[in-house]
């Protein structure tokens, strides 16, 4: 029984399997099966699999597809967009999938495109992923040659053109609708929802945007079925998950594990525990824009539902670990500075609040903190709360800050009373 469907084809030397190798391992059989299925049946299958989006928000994939207008009256063309703009600090999971098994993504995209009857697809790729771009382009060329892309895919009526678009590089482009604007050649400002992209997306047409890892799960779901997929997980969220760890651990890295692996398991069994001389203080479990968890939460299963119960999010599933030799204020400053820099400038809480927060954190870290600064930071976190802003950038951005203020408040206060960073 395959238990690591996402990474099963990956080679030890890091080279990507070419079309021949991929097909030899059973590749593109799921595509053939899917093309014989009615689109609605694929959507139902994905719904049953309980697959949730792996980009961070965790929206149920099948449900998302079911909002796409179908039938002859549906606006044309419809678009499928793969969000490969992996810009989240501390997150590098899609990179592995893109570099080490590009055909798996292409096959997943053909399946998704068939399900929503999209005729054009884009892979919106982070600009720095140069190797991924080269391997994707090579794989796409192979797929066109094999008639898996283009008109009459594998002899069926389904057609799909697949393009790689390399991003000019802004964090905002990773936001679903900012990505669509960027793809249209416009400023990467987010769009109002509703209307959702499923109805009015790229160039005003029905569009599905999915994360790389989400799409890579599709071939095995079609191949093995929904129940098998659900069985891979230890929790109610089906499938496996690419988990990562960075920070002062012995073996930073990325592992495909059953959904619901605990933080302790990832940290101790896979990442080898903390480096000598440092101890664990906390972690951002799902990338830079998730709330801190602490050693009270080490046994929480890493899935969408369980992390929410402890006030954080699964996000991308790639942990950034904070140790006792690193200043939490400095870490927050680094993060908030990044997010403030990346604000698109559209809504007031984001462009003003994040800058305010970053400036204040810098003052604290440089010894210029003043009484009232922590209240001001808490105010900015409230100001940028979900619903108060136009998109999810700012609410995510203040998650590490608001939780750091909760868990490491004494450290913040010492910065003010000591007029310096205690770690300096």
């Amino acid at each position, binding site marked *: 029984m395959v238990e690591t469907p996402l990474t099963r084809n990956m080679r030890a030397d890091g080279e990507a399997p070419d079309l021949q190798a991929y097909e030899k391992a059973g590749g593109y059989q799921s595509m053939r099966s899917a093309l014989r299925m009615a689109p609605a049946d694929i959507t139902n299958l994905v719904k049953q699999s309980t697959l949730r989006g792996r980009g961070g928000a965790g929206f149920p994939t099948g449900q998302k597809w079911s909002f796409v207008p179908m039938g002859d009256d549906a606006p044309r063309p419809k678009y499928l967009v793969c969000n490969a703009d992996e810009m989240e600090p501390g997150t590098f999971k899609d990179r592995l999938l893109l570099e080490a098994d590009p055909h798996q993504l292409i096959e997943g995209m053909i399946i998704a495109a068939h399900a929503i009857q999209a005729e054009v697809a884009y892979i919106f790729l982070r600009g720095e992923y140069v190797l991924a771009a080269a391997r994707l382009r090579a794989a796409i060329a192979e797929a066109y040659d094999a008639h898996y892309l283009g008109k009459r895919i594998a002899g069926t009526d389904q057609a799909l053109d697949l393009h790689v678009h390399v991003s000019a590089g802004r964090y905002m482009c990773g936001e679903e609708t900012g990505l669509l604007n960027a793809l249209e050649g416009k400023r990467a400002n987010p769009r*109002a929802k*509703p209307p959702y992209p499923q109805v009015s997306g790229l160039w005003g047409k029905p569009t599905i945007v999915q994360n790389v890892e989400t799409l890579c799960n599709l071939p095995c779901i079609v191949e093995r079925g929904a129940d098998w997929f659900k069985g891979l997980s230890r929790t109610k969220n089906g499938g496996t998950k690419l988990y990562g760890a960075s920070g002062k651990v012995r073996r930073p890295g990325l592992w495909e594990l059953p959904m619901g692996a605990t933080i302790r398991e990832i940290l101790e069994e896979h990442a080898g525990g903390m480096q000598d001389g440092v101890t664990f203080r906390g972690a951002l479990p799902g990338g830079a824009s998730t709330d801190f968890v602490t050693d009270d939460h080490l046994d929480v299963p890493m899935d969408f539902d369980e992390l929410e119960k402890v006030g954080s999010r699964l996000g991308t599933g790639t942990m950034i670990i904070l140790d006792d030799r690193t200043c939490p204020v400095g870490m927050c400053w680094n993060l908030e500075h990044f997010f403030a820099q990346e604000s698109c*400038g559209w809504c007031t809480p984001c462009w003003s609040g994040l800058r305010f927060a970053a400036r204040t954190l810098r003052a604290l870290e440089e010894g210029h903190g003043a009484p009232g600064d922590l209240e001001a930071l808490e105010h900015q976190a409230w100001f940028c709360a979900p619903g108060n802003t136009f998109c999810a950038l700012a609410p995510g951005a203040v998650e590490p800050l608001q939780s750091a203020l909760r868990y490491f408040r004494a450290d913040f206060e010492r910065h003010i009373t000591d007029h310096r960073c205690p770690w300096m």
Partner: protein
Amino acid sequence: MPTLVVDNHPFQVRADQNALEACLSLKLDLPYFCWHPALGSVGACRQCAVKQFKDEKDTKGKLVMACMTAVSDGMRLSIADDDARRFRASVIEGLMENHPHDCPVCDEGGECHLQDMTVMTGHDYRRYRFPKRTFRNQDLGPFLNHEMNRCIQCYRCVRFYREYAGGTDFNVFKLRDIAYFGRQQDGVLENEFAGNLVEVCPTGVFTDKTLKRHYTRKWDLTMAPSVCVHCSLGCNTTPGARYGKLRRMVNRYNGAVNGYFLCDRGRYGYEFVNSGRRITRPLLRDGGSERIVSRDEALDRASHLITESRSVIGIGSPRASLEANFALRAVVGAEHFHLGMSDADAALAGLMLELQRAGPAHVPSLRETEQYDAVFIVGEDVSNTAPRLALSLRQSARQQPMQRLRALKIPLWQDHAVREAVQAEHGPFFIASVNATRLDDLATSAYRAAPDDIARLAFAVAHHVDASAVAVDGLSGDLDDLARSCAAALATAERPLIVSGAGCRSASVIRAAAALARALHAKGRAVGLCFALPECNTMGTLLLGGKPLGEALDAAARPELVIVLENDLHRRAGAVRVEALLSSAAHVIVLDSIETATSARADVVLPAGTFAESDGTLVNNEGRAQRFFQVLLPDSEIQESWRWLAQLRAATHRSGDAWESLDDVLHAMGGAVPSLAPAIEAAPLSHYRMAGARVPREPQRYSGRTSMLANIDVSEPKPPEDVDAPLSFTMEGTTRQPPSALIPFFWSPGWNSIQAVNQYQTEIAAALEGGDPGVRLIHADGSTGGPARPEIPAAFAARKGEWLVVPLHHVFGSDELSHEAPAVAQLAPAPYVALNAADANALGAHEGDVIDITLDGVTQRLPLKIAPALPAGVAGVPVGLEGMPAVTLPAWSRLVTHT
């Protein structure tokens, strides 16, 4: 109607709107920035946050942005909720992090939406203690100052400029808190609606550069309801004056006419009022000597001339008020009153009036034109002849693609969702023109041809819409295909609009437009027919009627006395004809506001008030009579033309009552010309009072009344009484909202900026309370039915060695009065002759070469300009520019390269 519960009070509100519009329509104070009533919602600033509750039991609720929340029946909102208040104050605090707090030296101060909203939210203490971001500003040309440090990133400017007005040379650059709104590099903003940024910007990033030269705070301005005099559309304006000078012009909302926006000619043309070429004192000329005289002496001399001359004729003016034209007619007698436009112009305007009256097409108001879903512009370059109409048509082009958004459940007020869904798609938008136009970016198809060919296309479209309309023979296959596709698009639209005008100076073009409208009506379409006329009161003058100017110019029996009203005859006819009249007449009396070549020939020059020093009525292109009111108290001998003429009438006519006020002239006019009688209703008459009080022209906070003139005389002069209007020249008067025609300025407690207009409307972006001002004088009765079988002109044939010279128009330059405004004049081109590149090649001439062109027997020497879109065999000359003599066009001319 849905019931909306706001802070536990139930209100009946209109569906299809967002909660911000609903709250503002209910006159509830809810602050906002990025939302604009004409631009819709985008949810950027987050200023209009309110609490939304699920039901009566829900006490927690959630913050939502009112502008992004559609109202629904039973919806429960709270503006007063503590979280919502705190959030709104936080938004201001955020906006203020970088704002320079330079209100005392900012031109926006005192009418700044940011100031108003700051006060409204209660934010007063700034915690941000770090450096502010700063920008380098740009020189954007003669109309606008740029001060980016004040920017709060509401994105209104770029949305108006690019998305609403179609401009391309202005954008937002960079991101986060350093978003920069400007041009790629310094330079004059190209879009002729750029001046609206003054009002669209909620703070002082874009301010009026002409105002800066003679700056006055809004609260220190004397203001009055006025009407623009720079084209035929009759946009409503609010001029502001202080110390006897006109300081600025802003938009005056009229829900049926200009809505929220003006063109830059209308906004910046006002400075002609302050021109050094103003005539301010009566002048008598005798032989070579000229003498400034008193008002009485001038009147004595003029009335003496009138009574002593055996023959007197009057020449009216399409840029003077109805009252002034009527008063002149009364002085000289109807049989001696001539229309103040060339016979050709009068014939074209008369044809348009006749066709409007004949119907059956609806003649839409300017605001109505925005709602049509297919457009065919037949010959008229509206961006240059009726600019504000071009802005409206830009919105019409969006109507058809927006219709399908209903199926997607995208509300039309949700602006960016609409634009993202519609993308670059436009409804059917056909342009047939002589030269390239600034609406070409919208065009489904842009056909360039000589006027007769434009007419032929429109006739052909009419025939393809309705086979009973006359067919056009000899069309090329391509052109017939175009006619068919245009016909199909118009005939399948719900509300097609045909736009034309006198710009081509072609009766065939006008007739063809009307024939097409008739054909569409015959097919059951709710068709609109919109004509652009040449001047602000062309329609009024026509309705009043008069003899052709040509009869005066060319009559064998020369009159002894010619009285010319606000008219430079050199703009109406060639110098030879004008000179023949002026030199053969024994005496000439000219009433005008600026010195012209005609006033230079007068024995008696009477200083006439411009719109700013006068009350009066203008009739716009749709036949809407609108009253304008005096805003300036001249410290000279200037008075309204109609008052000069009323005084001359009193001095020279034994019978009849003397006319003491505007009311008297209006009543006399209504009696003498029944079709003009409804014009009396255009605004309340002088006796109108609100609870016994007049409507004040000055804000309550007007300062300096007792000290302004103290350097001259410490005793405060008695404020002048206005005998013509129910307005006072001071701040004394009613504090209530006046009737819509009498609104001198928009102001409401807490709303000091022009956005106070929200408080004067029945609903947001709808009619003003009590109905929009203006009275329609023309009603299509359909009885005359129009010409049964219009004559179709022969196809244009280029000639060897000769070109058909057609008029070209310029938004800045072609209008006589606005050209006196320095900012406008700066953007006016120099005279030229235009040819396409191939024709220029054939002539062996290059851009800038000097060409001799002969029109009406006069040879002019003009530089060549290459206009790639001009059809072969057609040359263009700019009309109306200073230095361009009046010529009869279209006309054939040889072109000779001057070496």
